[in-house]
């Protein structure tokens, strides 16, 4: 089967509008999570911290030259990252619009960032808002497709917080099985009253900065952002610059509870193990794990246990949720970009806000920026419905 290489990356998050800005912020251990929320009125404004991308919708519209009505923030964040990824890969407009180029995008909120508009449109028989075509998750990718005149396989994946890891996996498989020559894959999500209230109702939002893998962690912070990757096959590279190779991927289900992971962490364990198998690597070859590490009581303990179960002594690991919050459908893709940065620059970034190890496992994440040999990075994403995915990126 063809080897799959990443030839372009793009990202926007609370710590930067580009790959370069995100890279600098990761190195410096910048936290983009603040008790600020300017996107919509909410009771939680000023009370809870959020990883908001510090650009207004108007600025995004201007910057991206979006002129048509009904384009949501979720879609604009996606386009911002998409544009950077294709620019970075150097693929042409003709390549993008070729029937052989697939577009696989993930998100979980779609147009539901417009909570009040959706409430209105779902309940009115009068004139709808400009957003009646933009609420579902697919609308984001239909926008990207139209904007870029794309004709290849198009798909939207929503498996909650593992969505964009699965989008990357699906894109790679389309290429390996002859459904596409190249794929542009990624994920996006914007902050929404919907998710803020949802996670809060489950009592897993922290009113302080989240503390991944810390003994006294109190829950997650929500963030927003987007990332896209351009995937190309080895035989089509013609000597062009590559950022990393996608060597392993696996999705498995924990089959335990709709919104939390089992004590033994079968889902996370099977996903990590399956990705190693596809990559044909033994566990000791993984140099760094970009953990899911949401800082909920349940996730971090179970993920730690699953890492110990698979690795014995786990390799160096960290969570970037302390930098940008949990970006839900974008998390897998944003963290794929961060994993690739580690491989490219042979370095790892500090996991923020950690104080004491979880007593049952004693695991301590990376606490300081350091340079080290990084050949294989595993990136984990786990979501509701027991959905667990692991990707492995390797030095090209």
């Amino acid at each position, binding site marked *: 089967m063809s080897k799959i290489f990443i030839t372009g990356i793009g990202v926007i998050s609370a710590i930067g509008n580009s790959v370069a800005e995100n890279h600098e912020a990761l190195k410096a251990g910048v936290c983009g999570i603040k008790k600020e929320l300017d996107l919509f009125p909410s009771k939680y404004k000023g009370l809870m911290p959020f990883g908001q991308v510090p650009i207004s919708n108007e600025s995004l519209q201007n910057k991206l030259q979006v002129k048509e009505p009904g384009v949501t923030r979720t879609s604009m964040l996606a386009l911002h990252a998409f544009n950077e990824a294709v620019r970075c890969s150097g693929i042409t407009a003709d390549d993008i619009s070729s029937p052989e180029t697939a577009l696989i995008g993930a998100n979980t909120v779609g147009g539901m960032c417009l909570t009040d508009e959706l409430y209105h449109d779902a309940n009115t028989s009068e004139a709808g808002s400009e957003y009646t075509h933009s609420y579902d998750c697919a609308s984001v990718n239909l926008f990207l497709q139209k904007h870029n005149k794309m004709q290849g396989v198009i798909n939207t994946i929503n498996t909650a917080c593992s969505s964009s890891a699965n989008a990357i996996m699906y894109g790679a498989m389309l290429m390996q099985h002859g459904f596409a020559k190249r794929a542009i894959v990624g994920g996006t999500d914007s902050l929404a009253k919907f998710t803020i209230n949802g996670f809060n109702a*489950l*009592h897993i939002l922290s009113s302080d900065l989240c503390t991944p893998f810390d003994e006294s962690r109190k829950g997650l912070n929500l963030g927003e952002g987007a990332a896209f990757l351009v995937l190309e096959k080895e035989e089509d590279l013609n000597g062009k610059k590559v950022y990393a190779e996608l060597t392993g991927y696996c999705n498995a289900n924990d089959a335990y*509870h709709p919104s939390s992971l089992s004590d033994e962490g079968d889902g996370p364990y099977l996903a990590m193990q399956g990705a190693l198998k596809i990559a044909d690597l033994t566990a000791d070859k993984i140099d760094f794990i970009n953990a899911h590490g949401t800082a909920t009581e349940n996730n971090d303990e179970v993920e730690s246990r699953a890492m110990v179960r698979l690795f014995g002594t786990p390799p160096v690991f960290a969570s970037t949720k302390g930098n940008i919050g949990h970006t839900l459908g974008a998390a897998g893709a944003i963290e794929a970009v961060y994993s690739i940065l580690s491989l490219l620059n042979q370095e790892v970034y500090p996991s923020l806000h950690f104080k004491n190890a979880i007593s049952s496992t004693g695991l301590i994440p990376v606490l300081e920026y350091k340079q080290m040999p990084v050949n294989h990075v595993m990136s984990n994403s786990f979501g509701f419905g027991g959905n667990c995915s692991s990707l492995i990126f390797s030095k090209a």
Partner: protein
Amino acid sequence: METAELKQQLKKQIIEFLNLISVKPEDIKDDEPLFGEGLGLDSIDSIELIVLLGREYGIEIKDPKEGRKVLTDINTMVAYIEEHRTK
């Protein structure tokens, strides 16, 4: 309100709130555990029941550990409601 009446009312509210299809108020025993055994409710239900206590009786429970104690069975819930209700 008499305790017996409150118990009956609470059982009806639980059935409606959690959409316990095919469960009747008389099926819920006062001293039978609501979680695990007995009704077989789970962690999401426990959060829903805390919301029920807030909406129907004006009771705010912030500490999940206290919540778990309160929600042991109908007797513990009713005792707590009688002591803490604000409406």
